[in-house]
């Protein structure tokens, strides 16, 4: 069972969810190249200028670690689209895909409502810039609290959400300006869409759209405000995924 994190985070975001699957599955977590503790020197600006680059990485990981058996892929946000592209390229690698808060296109276009305009995305890049000073240079003092686990806190601070600001901006562009709507009908894998009831990044209308267009999909609403239900509502996510997966 491979988990891939969404934009802005790293594999730590699965901390609350993976215990629910550890007994039944071999859990594989990884950081997208350019995020978390990945080797930043491996960040090929041309390869990763589309999500296909990340999809190739996913197929390599799946090929190397799955012993030839198909795996279950859980992708959050942008990684759901990475899974989509990988599943189209090599369907036999995946038994099923779980998409948490997916969106095939964040930009409004004609009848389609992605939730954002191009200006909004530039505004995000601006916010990234303004947090660049505080985050990149003085990460350590940002932590307050977690007094019971100071070591854990420190470790997280030094890794979680931390990356090269230029890569973060590049990845933000690739993520929020990509349009994978045309790819949706080509996915043969069985998949589950987990749609939060209140998510400004992936609104309900987007989840409905995906469910309509993906050939073999189930849609499950999760009572949750925000884009990271696996952090704020891990139990609901775990049970929804278990319901979806075939009994072993």
């Amino acid at each position, binding site marked *: 069972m491979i988990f891939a994190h*969404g*934009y*802005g*985070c790293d594999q*730590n*975001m699965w*901390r609350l969810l993976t215990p629910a699957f550890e007994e039944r599955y071999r859990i594989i977590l990884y950081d997208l190249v350019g995020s978390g503790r990945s080797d930043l020197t491996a960040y090929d600006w041309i390869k990763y200028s589309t999500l296909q680059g990340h999809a190739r990485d996913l197929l390599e990981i799946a090929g190397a670690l799955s012993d030839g058996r198909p795996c279950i892929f859980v992708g959050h*946000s942008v990684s759901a689209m990475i899974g989509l592209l990988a599943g189209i390229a090599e369907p036999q690698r995946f038994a099923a895909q779980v998409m948490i808060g997916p969106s095939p296109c964040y930009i409004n276009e004609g009848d389609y409502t992605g939730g*954002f305009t191009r200006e*909004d*995305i*530039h*505004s*995000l*890049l*601006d*916010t*990234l*810039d*303004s*947090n*660049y*000073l*505080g985050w990149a240079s*003085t990460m350590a*003092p*940002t*932590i*307050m*609290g*977690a007094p019971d686990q100071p070591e854990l*806190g420190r470790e*997280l*601070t030094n890794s*979680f*959400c931390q990356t090269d600001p230029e890569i973060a901006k590049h990845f933000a562009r690739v993520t*929020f300006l990509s349009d994978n709507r045309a790819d949706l009908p080509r996915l043969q894998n069985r998949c589950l869409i987990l749609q939060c009831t*209140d*998510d*400004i*990044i992936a609104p309900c209308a987007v989840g409905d759209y995906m469910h309509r267009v993906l050939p073999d999909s189930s849609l499950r609403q999760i009572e*949750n*405000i*925000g*884009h*990271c239900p696996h*952090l*704020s509502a891990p139990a609901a996510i775990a049970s929804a995924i278990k319901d979806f997966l075939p009994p072993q």
Partner: protein
Amino acid sequence: MTQWREPESTDPYDAAACGLLTTAPDGKIRRVNATFCQWLGWAASELVDAKRFQDLLTVGSKLFHQTHWMPLLQLQGSVAEVHLDLVNRDGRTLSALVNATLHSAASSQSPDRRLVSVAVFIATDRRKYERELLLARRRAEELLASERAAQRARAFAEDRLHLALDSAQLHTWGAELPSGVVTYERRVGALLGRPESEQVPPDVYANAIHEDDRAEERAAFARAIDPDQRALYSTEYRLLGVDGAERTIRATGRGVFDESGHAVGFTGVLEDVTSRRRAEEALRERETEFRMLAENSPDIITRFDRAHQLVYLNHSVQRLSGAPPAAWIGKRLDELPLFGDVPASWHEALDAVFAGNEATLAFSHEAGDGAHLDFQARLVPERNARGQVMSALGITRDVTAIKSAEREAQHRAVLAEQLVGIVSHDLRNPLNAVLLGTHVLRASELTPQHARVVARIASSAERATRLVGDLLDFTQARLGKGLRVAHQEVDVHALVADCVEELRGSWPGRMLDVQQRGSALGCVDPDRLVQAVGNLASNALTYGAPDHPVTILSSISEDDDAIEVHVHNFGRAIPSDLLSHIFEPMRRGEQSVKLGSRSIGLGLYIVREIVSAHRGRVTVTSTEAEGTTFVVRLPRGSTEHQGG
């Protein structure tokens, strides 16, 4: 700075100098202080339980809040100094720094009861400052990047230079001034016959310079670092290597001067030009040799380039024209008076030479005094090392004297031939009369004594007739244009057999063995072939062992289309010193043979001439054991083949 107004409440929570909020984990506002409400322009009642914190953010900050802030808060329990943009009621953007802590409500550990404490600090000015800082940082990074690019470009240029120096086998050296510390590039050792990997100490190098060349090198160096001269350092010296080899080094370089004009250094390049100098020397020597030969040649020696322009001419031309070579060199062929009357054939010949061929031409020239001069010219291509024709070397010989001598000789030959012809012809008539007389006498009754005398007269007259015939042939072959032959198709075997039959009469008691091989027809002059075979067979009978047969074999080979006649005899071998020129005229065989049977030594010469006239060859082998064999080999030249 945002205007700070005295808050209505004096409660420390409400009156805090920062915005304070308490929200549910999903962002729903549970409590908010007056300062925050004042900044945002909302009443507390409009916010509490009505809006979420993220609702108050710009879209970009909302995205950031969702993708970074929320996961961080969930996982770490706190975030600090996050820059977010808030939107107030009027739509104005407020830059703020936001801290937040997620903590459990005191009463319960249930996630539902967790609360988030948020502190908001206005950071508009700080934001401006940070933006400037960011810009400055960007600029610094750009500068750094361009500096790195420049460094890379420099390193690349340096690599390229080294590659160029290496491939050109150039070595660099330099001196620091005023300290005078000299350093040589590592590979300089090769110039001294030392391992390339060893650094060359400066004094070792300086001492290796040939004693006679040192002063000049030092002077050139001094001129180069003299601020007043700043001369280009360019010198050549011999370098004595530890391997005993003497190398010629070409050294170039220049001084380096600071702004105030003081020499601060020197940088130079060394090149081993030994082989180039040697090659130049060899070339010079060859050129000198050529000049020496050419200048002393009685012939006119010319060299034309591709444009048919005369680039060299030797002094012989002066004898002819009175003008020195310098007056001619540099002119194009069309402008040269010597060849003025025949430029077309010269152009043609030169074109042939530049196409890689040799050319000869003959031409005549009216000298200034009206004398008629004959010339023969031979032109050959001169090629460079790659085989390209670079120039055309011509040797022009004045053949006026030779030509006139030739004409004179020809004239004399005609006279001699005519003379011999007349004499021989005129001798034949009286000899015929003598022979006719002997026939008449033989028909009448003679005493035995008279009969012997008549027989002797007859045989002498016959020999004289043969001698006259040989003389006529000799004259024709030697002085004229060779023997004339008239080909016709004949049965060669029959012809040779008839010839042998005639000989039997003259050589009673001798064994003559005739053999024939192959088909019979061939195209020859029958009279001449009979004459040749007759001469060879007579020789074989004369010189061969009398108790052994003489064998005459005629053979026609279909394979190589040739007629061969072998004449073999046993007996003493022909001495080897005679064998090599046995076909020359007036060569006699063994002196011991009785004089009476000898002709004047023209027999084999005439055989060779007959064979030559048939475009054939005659050869001889002779050993004591195998005997002597003459082989005449003629092309078959039959009419059926010619007509074929």
